[in-house]
């Protein structure tokens, strides 16, 4: 059984014209199934860069990124999109919900891109997830009609939609108050046990 995440000597250099910034200098990392891992560090230390690498949003300058035993280091854009929607769930600092869609539709979003579900399956699944994060009464509300914490919970539900093997959360509590932040952390921890992510 391969590990969900395996990084081998990952280097990322940002080339800003005259200056080269080494954001990651040879990271080796293995995350096992069911493990949850927090990465902490000061602003600008490369946390986001690392998550982008794992999430297939960015290519490393050197090294290998292996997700579920699949090397995604040099994958095409199209295949990466597939990996992202099938294996990875993202939670961002700034919630990043589609403002034009309701909570329910936001959760359905990534399932829409997967060919195998029917419309009613997508709807049922999204409803179940909303219930899981305790927002079923908000299903028709737009992100602008919800509080930050609620938006983040929708984002979490969305991240779970395609039953990914990895959830990546980039400062999920960064934009809500402390108490809500704790709630979110607890929610993620619970989900970790429940869904064995």
């Amino acid at each position, binding site marked *: 059984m391969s590990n969900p995440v395996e990084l081998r000597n990952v280097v990322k250099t940002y080339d800003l014209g005259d200056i080269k910034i080494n954001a990651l200098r040879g990271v080796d990392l293995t995350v096992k199934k069911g493990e949850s891992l927090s990465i902490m560090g000061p602003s600008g230390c490369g946390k986001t860069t690392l998550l982008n690498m794992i999430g297939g*949003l*960015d290519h490393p300058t050197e090294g290998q990124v292996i997700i579920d035993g699949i090397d995604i280091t040099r994958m095409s854009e199209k295949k990466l999109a597939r990996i992202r*929607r099938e294996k990875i769930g993202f939670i961002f600092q700034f919630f*990043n919900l589609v403002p*034009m869609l309701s909570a329910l539709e936001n959760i359905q979003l990534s399932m829409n*891109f997967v060919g195998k579900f029917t419309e009613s399956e997508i709807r049922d699944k999204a409803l179940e997830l909303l219930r899981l994060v305790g927002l079923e009464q908000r299903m028709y509300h737009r992100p602008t009609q919800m509080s930050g914490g609620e938006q983040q919970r929708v984002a979490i539900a969305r991240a779970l939609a395609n039953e990914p093997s990895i959830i990546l959360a980039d400062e999920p509590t960064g934009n809500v108050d402390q108490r809500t932040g704790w709630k979110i952390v607890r929610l993620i921890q619970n989900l970790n046990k429940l869904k064995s992510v």
Partner: protein
Amino acid sequence: MFKTLRFSFRIAKRSIGRRKFRSALTILGVIIGIAAIVSLMTLGYGMRYQIETTLNEMLGAGVIISSRDGSADIPEYVQEYVSQVPGVNASIPLIMTMVYINEQPTMIVGIDPIEVASLYHVTYEDGRGLEPEEDESIIFTSTTANNLEISVDDKITISSTGLGGIGQTFTVVGILHTVGAEQMNIGCFITLEAAQKLLGKEGYANTIMVRIDDPSQGEQIEAILENMYPTAYIAREEELMSEIGQIMDIIDGVLIGLGSISLAVGALGIMNTIMMSVHERRREIGMLKAVGAERRHILFIFLSEALLISFFGGILGCIFGLFGVYIAQWFIAMLGLNITIPLIISPYILGVALMAAVSVGIMAGLFPSWTAANIRPVEALRYE
């Protein structure tokens, strides 16, 4: 695939709804372009229809002989020779010219009433037809009579210039019943002799209409007549039609060209709107990519926005375009011109206009949508 499309349309619809004012302006741009194309093409189509049916009605002939400069210089007796050409069914000398009645330019035809009665089935709305030798009477077609506000027993003065002045007085004896479309019936009729007197050309005509038995003989008969009268202008009806058709094609081309310019402006509007939309929604694009949207998904979302805008613009443009024809008709009437351009709604024109709207919309949307599809997710997410 179908699901993706439906989903894209839903997002596009909301995006348009969210920026109502901007979308409305963009749609307005498309409406103006399409309305211009539809109204100009419909006017052109109406014009062509009118000219062709008028000709058909008036000539009804196989071959038409006319003097090259329009002056009455064909001796009347030529007709007798023409009638003897094998294949010729009948030939009628006539004078067709423009005169001024009540200071309005009007088409007048001088023709022997007996010949007309033998060839056409004519009915009268009011009054009666002309009698032979009744050289001071005139009959009008109903359209022209209405335009000039003339009724039976009126005395009218015909002059050859628009300035009025000395002319000849005629008594209106009849109004022709409108046959078929109203636009086919223009002008008025007097006897050939009266027309000759009017022009001071007794014994002459400027046109001889030749009816032939078998249309396939047309070319042959035309050649014979050309040999007989090398100085006259001889044309078969079909030729005349195709010549006029060519002129109409040019007019159509100019009209479509004018319409296309305004449509091009509309296209720029679409492009601008989609560009803005892409710019505003960079983060959203990054996020969509992060949750697994492929390039084509993003492309569809923005293309469908362009498509919706151009489709609505196209439909409304068609409606406003037809409305524009009404305005043009009203305008022509207000200028006091004795021209009626019929409004003929052609599904073909509407179809072409709608297709043009949608394809221009897609083309205008393609570049910004492509830009959106190629945005790199990391950059888009970092974007504030």
